[in-house]
């Protein structure tokens, strides 16, 4: 399993870096789609097929196609360079802090729980169903806010 996980990890990290570093936006999208699919594979291997399917449908399907649509609509623009040493330092510090913290806290691994779809549904109904209402209002607020800002802006320009 170490070999399987290592291959998965290498692909995930390589595609994540490629999605950030490549300049051709179509290749950025390809790397991003592969990254999302590999993460779905990780969910399947962890024993969460519904989450994997959700990831494939919404991220690797919907979001990737949305990004493709955006790229085809706006076309390729040349990206301005920015000094990335500070950003790399911050990211590296974050990574090292996380690794040290997880070692320091003495994280132990118990045998994995076998969580069935029925159990996920039961916990969802018992604990989280009420969250759907504020979540729906938040989603509506985000969409309406974006529309409001744009319509104000466009009306003003005209």
């Amino acid at each position, binding site marked *: 399993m170490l070999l399987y996980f290592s291959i998965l990890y290498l692909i995930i990290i390589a595609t*994540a870096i490629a999605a*950030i570093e490549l300049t051709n936006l179509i290749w950025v999208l390809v790397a991003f789609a592969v990254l999302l699919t590999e993460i779905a594979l990780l969910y*399947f291997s*962890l024993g969460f097929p519904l*989450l994997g399917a959700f990831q494939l449908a919404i991220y690797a399907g919907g979001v990737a196609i949305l990004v493709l649509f955006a790229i085809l609509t706006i076309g390729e623009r040349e*990206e301005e360079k920015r000094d990335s040493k500070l950003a790399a330092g911050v990211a590296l510090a974050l990574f090292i802090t996380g690794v040290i913290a997880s070692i320091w806290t003495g994280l132990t691994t118990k045998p994995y729980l076998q969580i069935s779809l029925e159990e996920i549904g039961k916990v969802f109904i018992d604990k989280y169903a009420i969250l759907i209402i504020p979540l729906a209002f938040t989603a509506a607020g985000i*969409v309406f806010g974006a529309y409001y800002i744009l319509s*104000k802006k466009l009306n003003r320009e005209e």
Partner: protein
Amino acid sequence: MNFQFSHEPMFWFLLVTFSLVAIGIYGLLARKSILKMIISVEIVVNGANVGLAAFATQHGADGVIIAFFAIALAALEVAVGLTLLIVLARKYGITFPEKLNNLKW
């Protein structure tokens, strides 16, 4: 061959989480293109979701449900972000956030 994880150390999955979050933060700070910044945010969210799913194997189904919510909200955020990007690009030719300094009304 069985590809189902059953007793692998949690540290492996936390390593994936930390790596993805670090790469996403790097992209967010180092890139000027709005599209790449949106992709960076998505990488951070995916890293967090991997951590949630990994902890769900130890503590129950709550992590998976929160990951479902995170995926739904992240998809919404991408949709709104890309819509703004397309409108700004078509109307004003702006695809870099530095030039986006006139949203006041």
